């Protein structure tokens, strides 16, 4: 879950990293009031969950409250990378003597966290690594021991800092790592970390991304006024919200991660990343999917049943394709039970409804017996996912 800058800064403040004096505003009038109270030149920063807002005009500086209000008007009318600006952060303007970079993320090849520092802050880290790879210093960190003080100093030294300021930066690096570990982050970044003219180090920007699967462990977020949500480029539809509720009925297996489309072929698909392949195959053969979804990890019969019901009740649905990879972790018989129960509860005769199964793997013989008993057409593992998608598309175009 990506946090807004102001949310990340709430955590920084709590954990002892210096941030600029600032407040959140939802209207130009509020911006004017805050600028008035701060009695300083201010930075007005759009709060969106995307990078690149600076280049898009989402960060502006104002000399006085009146100008702040005018500039805020501009920012509130922006749409940056598809995001409307609903809130801005109004902060005292900082005058850097230098801008630095400090970040922590996971290195998937090393399978451990890696801390990154650079003397070039304020620009996108990918750009720094492309143009000035020699300016980037990376340091793997052992998760069990955490970041040691000497590692903090190494990171600070490689930002080009010396003496007292180096110690301060080292301290910030250790605190940032502690945040990374304590809040189960995938990414913790300060860009830029500003060295002010009077020798203070302040996190001018803050970027935290929390691991979605670990959010349940962080009840403290609520107290910090950080609502738990799912990253999504758009607001989920009713259909998607319902599907998510179904997936949450039970911790066992996945029968969710649904995305709604406006086609007529309902999909119950999954299998170790095969969902996307299946979805593509349906499109390739001219089919129009009503939804994308993922099933796997042995969801309960009830979860499969409820998800199938949701899909079958979707207006405009002409048929259902249950296609999975060859799975050892999702039983074919349990999926078949769920689908048939859904049909029976909706008063649909399974032998008359256009439904096609291509599932194979654990308990496939039991699954096929059930499908045969209820007159449902199925393809076994001799048929590829592509052939199954083609057959399903043809089934509903008849």
């Amino acid at each position: 879950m990506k946090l807004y800058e102001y949310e990340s800064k709430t955590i920084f403040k709590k954990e002892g990293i210096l941030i600029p004096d600032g407040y959140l505003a939802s209207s130009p009038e509020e911006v004017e009031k805050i600028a008035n109270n701060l009695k300083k030149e201010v930075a007005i920063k759009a709060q969106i969950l995307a990078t690149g807002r600076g280049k898009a005009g989402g960060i502006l500086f104002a000399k006085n409250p009146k100008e702040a209000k005018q500039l805020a008007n501009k920012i509130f009318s922006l749409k940056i990378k598809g995001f409307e600006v609903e809130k801005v952060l109004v902060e005292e303007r900082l005058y850097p003597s230098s801008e630095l970079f400090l970040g922590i993320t996971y290195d998937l090849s090393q399978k451990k966290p890696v801390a990154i520092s650079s003397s070039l802050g304020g620009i996108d880290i990918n750009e720094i690594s492309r143009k000035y790879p020699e300016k980037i210093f990376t340091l793997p960190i052992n998760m069990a021991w955490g970041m040691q003080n000497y590692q903090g100093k190494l990171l600070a030294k490689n930002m080009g800092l010396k003496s007292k300021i180096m110690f301060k930066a080292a301290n910030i690096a250790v605190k940032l790592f502690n945040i990374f570990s304590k809040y189960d982050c995938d990414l913790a970044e300060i860009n830029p970390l500003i060295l002010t003219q009077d020798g203070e180090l302040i996190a001018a920007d803050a970027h935290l991304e929390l691991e979605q699967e670990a959010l349940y462990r962080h009840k403290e977020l609520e107290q910090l006024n950080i609502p738990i949500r799912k990253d999504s480029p758009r607001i989920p539809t009713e259909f998607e919200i319902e599907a998510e509720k179904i997936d949450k009925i039970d911790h066992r297996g996945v029968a969710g991660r649904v995305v709604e489309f406006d086609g007529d072929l309902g999909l119950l698909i999954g299998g170790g990343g095969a969902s996307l392949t299946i979805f593509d195959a349906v499109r390739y053969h001219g089919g129009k999917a009503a939804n994308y979804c993922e099933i796997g990890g042995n969801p309960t019969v009830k979860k499969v049943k409820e998800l199938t019901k949701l899909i079958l009740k979707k207006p405009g649905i002409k048929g259902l394709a249950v296609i999975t990879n060859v799975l050892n972790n999702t039983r074919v018989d349990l999926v078949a039970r769920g689908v048939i129960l859904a049909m029976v509860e909706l008063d649909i005769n399974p032998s008359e409804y256009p439904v096609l199964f291509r599932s194979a793997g654990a308990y496939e013989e039991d699954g096929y017996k059930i499908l045969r008993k209820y007159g449902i057409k199925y393809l076994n593992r001799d048929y590829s996912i592509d052939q199954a998608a083609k057959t399903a598309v043809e089934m509903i175009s008849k």
Partner: protein
Amino acid sequence: MGMFVQIEIDYNKCKNVKNCKICEDVCPVEIFKFEKLDNNRKISVVEENIDECIFCNLCLEKCPQGAITIKKLY
């Protein structure tokens, strides 16, 4: 009885054991429910969960009275 699975308890056998609720403890999909009623106990089969049975056979193996029968209905 579910649509795919039939599970029955022979209460004549089950009643012989005091406070036994082994089937409830071992079933991974919560098919048996134990209730304490005053001086009695009652084990029932949760109808809405029957079709979740994964045929792990734990209940059959562990029931000290051999009181449970399970049948596939396909």
